[in-house]
């Protein structure tokens, strides 16, 4: 075959891939079954407390089976979620923290890579139809792993980020960072939704004020 044919094959392949990316990120992410495999990421410093307050309102019969991801050095979150779930069927996966408080940055590179690999494995094993996060550091690789898998078409997953009750006037750094990879950012305060003083900082259509649900 001539080099021209190869070129056009390559172009077609890339166009198909881009179409796939577009399709998944526009509407294909919505799960269609009546029971939703739910995955939630826990985290110290109030994240688990807020997550449980949200989950209390969720219909457990529809959102099942449920799995949780927590940092390995955060036994408090695990015990909180176990007492919330009681005897119900659920799984807790432990992952290494990307960087411990006070850990030097050059070693953080390795722990971060390890943390990403663990997150990829956990997400692959669970294949959640919905991923619910509220901002702990541990959620970043989990969201990215989910986004990559669903973009490649391995499974459908809707990714929802609920902003913390503490964030009143602006979105947190993790929310802004993960914005391209999530389907929805929900805020508990009206004022958290950024105003649009200029076109450049137009709030994303993904950001939604849901009211004081906590």
């Amino acid at each position, binding site marked *: 075959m001539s080099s021209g044919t190869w070129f056009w094959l390559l172009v077609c392949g890339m166009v198909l891939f881009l179409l796939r990316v577009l399709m998944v990120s526009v509407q294909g992410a*919505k*799960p*269609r079954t*009546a029971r*939703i495999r739910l995955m939630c990421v826990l985290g110290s410093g*109030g994240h688990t*407390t*807020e997550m449980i*307050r*949200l989950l209390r*309102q*969720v*219909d457990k019969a*529809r*959102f099942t089976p449920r799995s949780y991801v927590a940092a390995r050095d955060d036994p408090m979150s695990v015990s909180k979620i176990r007492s919330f779930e009681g005897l119900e069927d659920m799984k807790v996966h432990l992952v290494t923290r990307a960087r411990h408080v006070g850990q030097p940055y050059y070693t953080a590179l390795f722990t971060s890579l390890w943390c990403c690999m663990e997150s990829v494995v956990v997400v692959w094993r669970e294949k959640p*139809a*919905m991923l*619910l996060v509220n901002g702990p550091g541990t959620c970043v690789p989990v969201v990215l792993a989910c986004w990559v898998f669903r973009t490649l078409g391995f499974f459908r997953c*809707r990714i*929802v980020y609920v902003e*913390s*009750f*503490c*964030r*009143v*006037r602006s979105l947190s750094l993790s929310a802004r960072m993960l914005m391209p990879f999530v*389907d*929805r950012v*929900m805020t508990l*305060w009206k*004022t958290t939704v950024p105003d649009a003083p200029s076109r450049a900082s137009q709030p994303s259509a993904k950001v939604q004020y*849901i*009211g*004081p*649900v*906590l």
Partner: protein
Amino acid sequence: MSPSPCATPHMHIFVSVGTTRFDAMLEVLQDPQILANLKELGYDTMTIQHGKGDPMEVPEGCPLSIQQISMTSQFEREVSAADLVISHAGAGTILEVRDHSKKHIVVCNPSLMNNHQLELVDALNKEHTAIGVASPEELRELMSGLGNLALRIQLMSRVRGEGSKVRSFGTILMHEAGLI
């Protein structure tokens, strides 16, 4: 000023610093004038959860009977037993006190940098669901004037209950999942 006629006898205060320490807040509360003001408003018992910090130094002749604990596994029970909660600005604590519709004075810790506590207490002040103060010094200011304190506490109770939950998160998530 005499105690208000509708004050119920044996009112209880729960003070909580959270899981770490907030000594500056407790230092304000040990002021004899402030304790006298609280007594005047009808409070006669106080439980102080002092966390990893030192217990509060109770002044001689303190008009309130004070019990001190470092941590509690019965946080919810402590909140529900109280008529007034004075605490640090932790989100978990604020939400718990809201659940029980208790009067709440929320104190920011200025030694914690970059944590949006000020924004949060500002929002609470605007909602009138709690009295938020930016620092222990501001707490002292609030609690030193008896008339002011009584009025602020009364105003807080009057608007409580407004702006309650509209939609449950469960419904919102079902929507998001395409189940509704």
